[in-house]
């Protein structure tokens, strides 16, 4: 019960931090503009090259639009835990959370949940805007199946990706405990590498061997595959298989994350780093 309350309080705080610093509608707009522009940028790259080569297909455009939209969600998970810890160290919040009875594991879980809650609408909006903007700009809308089933299946995929997001959050959180400068460096690399390895824009099979194996091991790759199976290919078998891998991979990543974070906190406590300020 105490755990639920702690997670809820942290999620509420995360929501306040991300969305309530100004009018929530304005906040959502500001959060949506950048990912939508990024989706359209990727779509424009594809359109430009493929039109000249006569290789343009709306299916491939849909592949890019769906993947790039979901990447906004995946990319956000790389930054939120780092912000929670590094800002918390700067404002002295993190040491105070650390000494509470439930400590920081539910705190980070709550912050990641808040990130899920505020970036899920961003995915939906950027997907919708990109759909219509693609039609206006490229003269061909991406072939996205918008049915109740496909939307529910994509939502389910996003929900099942939560353990993976939490796992990534704990791993990056354990890094943030130790750094007092350049705290954004690792999340920037992780976020950028996820763009390449999670099949956000292209299939991992185009990468030279053994790099595709990295993509196969990432749960976020299966989030992309499950969502595309729902929104583009209408393939129930691909969807269920990908969901299975996503759940399993997410669970493994979550366990690794919690173990890493606990060890990092213990080590940081031994070294007196829990309340070391971020410069």
């Amino acid at each position: 019960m105490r755990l639920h309350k702690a997670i809820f309080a942290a999620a509420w705080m995360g929501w306040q931090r991300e969305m309530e610093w100004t009018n929530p509608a304005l906040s959502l707009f500001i959060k949506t503009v950048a990912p939508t522009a990024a989706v359209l940028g990727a779509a424009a790259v594809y359109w430009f090259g493929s039109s000249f080569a006569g290789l343009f297909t709306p299916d491939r455009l849909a592949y890019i639009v769906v993947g790039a939209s979901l990447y906004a969600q995946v990319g956000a998970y790389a930054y939120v835990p780092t912000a929670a810890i590094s800002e918390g160290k700067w404002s002295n919040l993190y040491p105070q959370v650390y000494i509470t009875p439930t400590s920081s594991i539910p705190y980070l879980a709550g912050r990641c949940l808040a990130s899920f809650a505020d970036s899920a609408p961003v995915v939906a909006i950027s997907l919708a805007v990109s759909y219509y903007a693609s039609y206006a700009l490229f003269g061909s809308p991406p072939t996205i199946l918008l049915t109740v089933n496909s939307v529910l299946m994509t939502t389910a995929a996003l929900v099942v990706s939560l353990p993976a997001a939490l796992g990534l959050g704990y791993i990056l959180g354990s890094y943030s405990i130790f750094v007092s400068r350049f705290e954004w460096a690792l999340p920037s690399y992780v976020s950028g590498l996820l763009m390449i390895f999670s099949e956000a824009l292209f299939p991992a099979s185009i990468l030279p061997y053994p790099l595709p194996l990295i993509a196969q091991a990432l749960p976020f790759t299966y989030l992309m595959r499950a969502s595309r199976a729902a929104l583009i290919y209408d393939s129930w078998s691909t969807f269920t298989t990908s969901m299975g891998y996503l759940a399993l991979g997410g669970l493994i990543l979550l366990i690794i994350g919690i173990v890493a974070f606990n060890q990092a906190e213990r080590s940081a406590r031994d070294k007196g780093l829990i309340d070391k300020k971020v410069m």
Partner: protein
Amino acid sequence: MQANLNLWLRSAYSRAWVRVKSTYGEPVWLAVNLAVPLLSSLAMALLYQSTGLSKYTGFAIVGGIMLAFWGNVLWSMASQFNWDKEVGIFEIYLISPAPISALLVGMSLGGILATAPSAALVALIGWAFFSTSISPSWLAVFLTFILTLASLYAMGMLLSSLYLAYGREAESLNNAIGEPINFLSGIYFPSIGTGSPFPFALQIAASLIPLTIGMDALRKSVFYADGISAIWLNLLILAAMSAILLFLGDKALKVLENRGRREGTLVVRLR
């Protein structure tokens, strides 16, 4: 007059020196600055390659190079005064005799020198991975590059002045405008002229961004051997944009500085 010029130059030099020294004295900065431009340009180059369009991977690499500088303009020019205000340095600027415009110009020159290694690494790694063929007209490339940087950093000075009026909104604004400007300016694909997916009105709007004009000229001069005679209009527009943005930045800074002094909000911190 001589004394004023001397003070201006010394102020600019010292601000540039701090920025260069802080970057080259801490090599980790290189790795930090490299992440976004390198990985996003590699991703876009792979996107070109995945659709069987390997000949355009160079567009993504050149985009990554310029993204390094645009990132520096956005995060280390536009929002710099805001951060300086947070840590109390801005107050010191105000009470010192150093002209603020000299500090901004110094910050720009220092920023260019500090970003150059990251941009060079994006080029080296990108070309090593994709072996893109280029056909450059070097004088045109050099002039375009210099003028694009001049206009971009002049835009950074203008944004820096405007951000003085904002508090923590500055960070959110930076997050919000970064990608749309990347998109409109065609960092990775032509957004104006032949090959642009944009309607004419949007191309005109995109042309108001210096990066759009610069990227268009860079692609022409790097990949299609277009000389100065072919891209003179781009160069002229970039030069004009640099002068106008520099002038507007200086004016905006004075207006906002005066308003801030009058209202007593110039050095108000957030936390």
